[in-house]
């Protein structure tokens, strides 16, 4: 395993980017302490990272290393105990709930391990959901939904169906369509292949690669799955609430290329 310590020290990630560009996401010395009853749990201990526009970063680490906490704080679902979070160069670590919700809605798209589609809504309604708080007119919403579904390599015949009528891989495509429907700058994915078989995981990995290359989406994937991590442009290792190393991925180990 070759480690790129230079990138760790400055928490720089400048793959293919010109220096001086504003990072999409930056965490500076972020600490997160949870209180579980009387016990204080340090989930993050001074984590710093920079994600530049166009990046595709995989964050790997064992269970309890702070992966999920990192993703929650990066996605403005949680606030740091200490440290700062910058999104598009703006300090967002102390914003109120409404402002954070608006930023989540416009700048970030989430993809989850369990897809988290709303079972009673149709596929169309699920993908449309992030557009509701924006108050867009119906026709515009429809255009965006169809575009997102196409980009996520979904099929329009799914639209009137309910999530449970689709396979896991199809559901994850729908979830990805929902994540990108609002044209966000940043996709945050939490174990997106964790609930899928290998062949399906390969297709989802290929989809992420394509969205990153063709749609210029910045993607951060938290995963256990090395075959997914090697599809990224960069792998960051997290341990004990800190980034402890970076790795150049080996494309031949990427599931999208090895299993197609």
């Amino acid at each position, binding site marked *: 395993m070759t480690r790129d310590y230079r990138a760790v020290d400055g928490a720089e990630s400048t793959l293919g980017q010109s220096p001086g560009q504003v990072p999409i996401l930056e965490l500076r010395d972020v600490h997160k302490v949870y209180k579980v009853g009387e016990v204080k749990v340090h989930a993050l201990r001074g984590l710093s990272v920079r994600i530049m526009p166009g990046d595709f970063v995989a964050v790997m680490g064992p269970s309890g290393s702070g992966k*999920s*906490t990192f993703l*929650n704080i990066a*996605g403005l*679902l*949680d606030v740091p105990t200490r440290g700062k979070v910058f999104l598009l160069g703006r300090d967002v670590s102390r914003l109120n*709930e*409404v402002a954070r*919700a*608006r930023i*989540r*809605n*416009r700048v970030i*798209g*989430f993809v*989850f391990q369990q897809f*988290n589609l*709303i*079972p*009673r*809504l149709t596929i169309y*309604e699920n993908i449309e*959901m*992030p557009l*509701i*708080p924006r*108050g867009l007119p119906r026709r515009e919403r429809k255009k965006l939904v169809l575009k997102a579904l196409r980009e996520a390599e979904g099929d329009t015949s799914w639209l009137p169906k309910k999530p449970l009528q689709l396979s896991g891989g199809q559901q994850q495509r729908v979830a990805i369509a*929902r994540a990108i429907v*609002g044209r966000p700058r940043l996709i945050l994915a939490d174990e997106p292949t964790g609930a899928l078989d290998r062949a399906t995981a390969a297709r989802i990995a290929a989809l992420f690669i394509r969205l990153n290359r063709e749609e210029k989406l910045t993607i951060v994937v938290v995963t256990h799955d090395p075959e997914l991590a090697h599809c990224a442009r960069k792998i960051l290792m997290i341990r004990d609430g800190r980034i402890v190393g970076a790795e150049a991925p080996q494309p031949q180990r990427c599931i999208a290329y090895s299993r197609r």
Partner: protein
Amino acid sequence: MTASLIRILPDLARYAAKALTEKKLRSLLTIVGIAIGPMALTAILGVVQGYSNYVINQLEGLGQNLIILVPSANYDMSSSDIAFLRDLPGVKEVTPFYSLRAKAKQGVRDIDIAIYAVDLDVFFHALGKLRLEEGSLPPPGDTASAVIGHYIAFDETGTRYYRVGDVLTLTYYSFKRGRLIQHSISVIVAGVLAEFGNAFFVNPDVTVFLPLDAGPKLLGMKKWSGIIVVADSPAYVENLTKFLREVYGERANVISLIEISKVVASITAAMRFITIAAGSAAFAVAATGIAATMITSVMERTREIGVLKAIGFTDAEIVTSIILEAILMSLLGSAFGIAAGVAAAYALSTRGMVLQGMQVVIRAPPEITLPMIVKTIALTIVIGVLGSLLPAHRAARIPPAEALRYE
């Protein structure tokens, strides 16, 4: 921010409606629970208001400026009473009357009737609503001629038994020296009254009206049954009644129809109060029912609420969607409840209200008004909102990061 919330309200409502359809049975049962309050209110208030309006209308039709004095057993009324009453300010006319209960034949059937011997001109003048259908009022001296109520001449099916010029035989009882004696008298029908409708105190439809002199001459009565006082205007009635009570004390009962309608109105108000009090209990139960249902549903949807927050719904938007869900249930509940209440009100009112001792059955359509329906719906919605506040607060407080991990 509020403006954008209003803009997305239709979409939130659609989402809330879908949430209701997910657990159909549970939503339905909650809606039934909500419906009980509006149903009870609509049914009971509608019927009570219907009866009350009917009674008050009847009483007012009977003569708002009438005061009736009925002597107690140990007091006899005489011409000095008449003279005293006639001189009181605000009094227009005074006439004594004789009354008793009797039976009359309608074919083979005996019907219960009342006989009133009274100054017919004064009486018919005071009760403007009384109309002759056929014939005319007999002159004061013609003590064997009578005006008979509509339902003596006809039965309920419209079959005619008596017409002008026919002889009507009346049977009644009296005590003479401690012995019960049956009397049979015959009168000639001089006029038939148009249908008056059920009424209190005097029910003209089943009454035989005779000239005043028929009391002693035909019926053999020595004592007046009472005195009818006609006031110049209904405005004097209350004070006159009060004054006459002070003068007569225990010696006579002073009855005014306006007063009775006031009593009925106050009874109605009391009944309405009791209904609303009992109804509020149903509403309180509905509120807790909504709260219980919504809390369960919010907990079941913890993860979903986490997802909504992750994709950018604000707490206010989530709270709104939960409250909208409760409002939708309230609207459905009040619609079902009011519909059932209206049906129940009509069912109840066709059974009628029997007034014991007065031989009167009141059949009045329920009075269900638009303001009443609007108020009921508004109240139900308020209850829905109250019931959903706690669950909505719960939902808003769910931290998104934890909600997403929730199993």
